[in-house]
């Protein structure tokens, strides 16, 4: 039984990381209806710049992280100028294809600068085993969980309590009505992509710290997709809860079903959960209006 809980908690922790990537997707989709495939590339981009600046140039982390956040702002601005603005009013599928283009462009750019070798990223999050009662925890997991909780709370405060957050919610409700009161959508897109960029920085630090920084990190995109579908495309709590369900589900499946039907379950199990779930509830756990929007 103890072993079961340890597996479960390990799974929940990787679930939090999936949720972090899915969160970035949700922010952009909710505000603009654009399905941003490039979110995972933004995570890799952030992680490579932080690890690269620290490793190759000796920039301390406390400087490398703010610099990277500024880079994400620049990236959001460039994406709005070069891509989104040109494709305004196009079909959602065309926007989606464009984000696939952005995905490869971002990775390519990061690799030109930092190469494709694997790096470590350790900003000093303690990583000792910790016993609570008889159960084994990793300190790293606990710190990560707290950091993610803080991030979600900050996002909620931003969206509910600030002027810009209110504008973002208005835009998410009705683009044209927002324009009719003088809101410039171009500015809003930069803000939204920047916020998603900040989430990507957090995700990059957490993922990079746990698994090292390397181009295969973008595979997490394919874990975030089922999380996204399960949680509903527009719900922040949905993304978190779905991340936890899928993370723990695949960890348990790997351990308990693995010996029966062979290993490697965690590669596809998330999709099975999401698919089975969507037969029952196509809009996801907390989703809304998915049918009109995709």
């Amino acid at each position, binding site marked *: 039984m103890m072993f079961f809980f340890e597996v479960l908690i390990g799974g929940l922790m990787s679930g939090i990381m999936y949720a972090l990537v899915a969160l970035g997707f949700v922010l952009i989709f909710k505000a603009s209806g654009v399905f941003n495939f490039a979110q995972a590339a933004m995570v890799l981009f952030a992680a490579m710049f932080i690890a690269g600046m620290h490793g190759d140039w000796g920039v301390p982390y406390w400087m490398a992280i703010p610099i990277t956040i500024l880079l994400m702002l620049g990236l959001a601005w460039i994406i709005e100028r070069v891509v989104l603005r040109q494709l305004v009013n196009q079909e959602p599928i065309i926007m989606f294809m464009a984000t696939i283009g952005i995905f490869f462009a971002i990775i390519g750019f990061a690799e030109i600068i930092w190469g494709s070798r694997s790096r470590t990223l350790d900003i000093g999050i303690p990583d000792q085993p910790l016993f609570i009662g008889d159960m084994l925890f990793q300190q790293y997991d606990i710190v990560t969980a707290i950091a993610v909780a803080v991030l979600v709370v900050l996002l909620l405060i931003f969206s509910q309590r600030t002027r810009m957050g209110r504008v973002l919610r208005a835009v998410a409700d009705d683009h044209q*009505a927002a324009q009719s009161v003088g*809101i410039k959508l171009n500015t809003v897109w930069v803000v939204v992509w920047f916020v998603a960029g900040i989430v990507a920085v957090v995700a990059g630090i957490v993922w990079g710290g746990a698994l090292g920084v390397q181009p295969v990190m973008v595979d997490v995109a394919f874990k975030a997709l089922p999380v996204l579908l399960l949680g509903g495309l527009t719900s922040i709590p949905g993304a978190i809860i779905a991340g936890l369900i899928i993370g723990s589900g695949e960890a348990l499946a790997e351990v308990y079903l693995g010996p029966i039907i062979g290993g490697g379950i965690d590669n596809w199990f998330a999709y099975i959960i999401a698919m089975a779930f969507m037969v029952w509830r196509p809009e996801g756990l907390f989703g809304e209006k998915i049918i009109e929007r995709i």
Partner: protein
Amino acid sequence: MAEQASAQQAEQALLSLNNIEVVYNHVVLVLKGVSLEVAPGSIVALLGGNGAGKSTTLKAISGLLTGERGEITRGTIHYNGENVTHMSAADRVQRGVLHVMEGRRVFEHLTVEENLQVGSYGRKDGAAAIQKDMEMVFEYFPRLRERRKSVAGYTSGGEQQMLAMGRALMARPRMILLDEPSMGLAPQLVEEIFHIVTTLRREEGVTFLVAEQNTNVALRNADYGYILENGRIVMYGDAARLRENPDVKEFYLGVSSGEGKTSFRNVKHYKRRKRWLS
């Protein structure tokens, strides 16, 4: 010469459209040369049936066509002496042109109060002035004050219409383009809305261009009217005169001229007149 003359006219009118042509999706011609003028401080009714081009005309004026793949392909729009034909919607809002769209279009997931706050988005005169204007909106629409904490999507149709107008007022408009305010509202509410329109004109000096299918109510409250059909202006004049016009009575007010049924000859007569007018 003609250019000069139209520029001069534009100086007197707050808004003037000169031969505006609008195309959707690069192929569908919706407005086929619409010209109209709105004098400062007036209420002008833009009348016509479904698909006549009323909403498109208002969107051309407010700059909201771009979001719908529409484009002004010919003609000019002057507002306050300035050519705004290809200006962004946000810049027009800055200049005081506010569009209250058909179907209210409130931000459904925001509260009534938040909707009003978003309405003041472009202003830079500080929180105190904005708060003062919110009080003003609540004075005009007391029902909104009662429901200020309610989520806008759950308020009634009449309240949403008031909210959409209040949201526009928050931007300190000089001119409001009001699209089909009577849609789906009980007659009494329609009267109330138009009463507020006339009050706002008197008290706040707001100029109104109102697109309406409800010809009767619109002409009773307006100073001037334009009738739009098939993307063209077919008739215009003082509101009082339009109300007495036999063709308007017949086709838009639903009052028959006393002989009972509409005869074919009358229809032909109307069509001939229409051709001449356009």
